[in-house]
């Protein structure tokens, strides 16, 4: 993960504090319900259900608050370079390397030894892109 993404991960502190308090209170309430059952022998279903619901809800909210890192647009897409022979049908696609440019002369074709060149450089679009 790069530095931008780390910086971009911003947690709303106020909401985090509220949810943490809610979570702690729910556990205390659940603990008390269990203690009461041990002492008296009669279960307090209402308190148990409410405590468990509060724990589930606050855990869910905590998970939701774990924001995905902001995408700023600086992320590197996968870029490919296509090398093509100028006389036969040989084509080779590899990952882009710094210094590549279209119509750059490359090593002779491995199939027919004619001159080969970079015919295109392109990126594959992300799935959500139109």
């Amino acid at each position: 993960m790069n530095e931008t993404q780390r910086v971009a991960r911003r947690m709303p502190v106020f909401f985090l504090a509220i949810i943490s308090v809610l979570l702690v209170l729910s556990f205390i309430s659940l603990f008390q319900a269990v203690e009461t059952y041990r002492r008296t022998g009669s279960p307090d279903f209402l308190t148990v259900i409410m405590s468990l619901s509060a724990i589930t809800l606050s855990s869910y909210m905590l998970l939701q608050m774990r924001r995905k890192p902001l995408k700023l647009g600086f992320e590197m897409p996968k870029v490919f370079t296509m090398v093509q022979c100028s006389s036969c049908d040989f084509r080779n696609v590899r990952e882009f390397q710094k210094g590549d440019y279209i119509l750059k002369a490359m090593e002779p074709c491995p199939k027919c030894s004619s001159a080969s060149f970079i015919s295109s450089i392109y990126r594959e679009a992300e799935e959500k892109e139109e």
Partner: protein
Amino acid sequence: MLREIEGSLFKLKLMRDQGRSIAISAINEMGKPSGDLATRVDRLLEHIDIGPVDLDPSGIIRRLEHIIDIRDFRFKDEVRLMVPEADETHVNNVANMLDAALFLNQVYKFVRHFYLTGKKTSSFYVILQLQMILPQVVKEAEAFARALRSFTLGQPMGDGIGALVAARLMYGKEEREIAKDVVVSEVPVEGRTAYVLKAKGPGANVGKPGEAVKQVLEEKEGKIERIIVIDAAQKLEGEKPGEVVEGIGVAIGGPGVEKFKVEEIATKYKVPINAILIKESIGDVVSTMRKEIVNSVDDVIERIKRIVRETTKEGDLIIVAGIGNTMGIAQ
């Protein structure tokens, strides 16, 4: 609503800062920069262009061109001063990269201005308007952030599709520089001679295609049967990227100087102009070229041949102008 704007403003600020640091590290990688690099970059990021006065529109295009030229020289000179050993390709790429970083800085400052104005004056309408345009603004800023990355690596961008088509036609032919940063080759197309033009690559460059078309027409004393202009065009939502459409007129974007020149010279010699457009979104225009857009090249070349066959006779002279930023595309 304020929270939403604050979120976007935070994102724009991160983009601005990240853009600045990418620009600085890219210049550092190029060699030993002279002087205080961060101060120089910061000064460029605050650069302001003042357009010509339009109260008297006479001669405004000439004046606008002069200002654009000065700006171009200034950016390139600044890069040369920062990294004296950089070659022309790198100078062009870095100058364009700084342009993208400058855009990110200006967008952030404009959004912050309206946000603070809205808050200060407690104006719901200022905030509402800002909130309405923010998604589009953020989208454009993201596109320029992607462009910044492409400039650091010298990868061809969507805008260069016109230049790519011209490069494919020119492959293996002799070329010469006909106007500032524009090269031309004589290419046989369906028994006609095509003067194929593109900006000089592989550095980031758009050149002066209008000037180049004018030069060819003047050299041939107007004996050109047709001008075909190829460029990227803004796609509408729902249209596919890389879709090819045809039209008439001069398909050259930007401030209008080059478009004006072609229109003027074509009108003088009564030369018909065809346009072939490749549809792209704003994000695709300034980021590394998508596969769908690269795949449209063969279709564009077929259309050029068809137009040439249908509208000219064998032995005629035509101009094919591939418009756009030629970064990562040689000739």
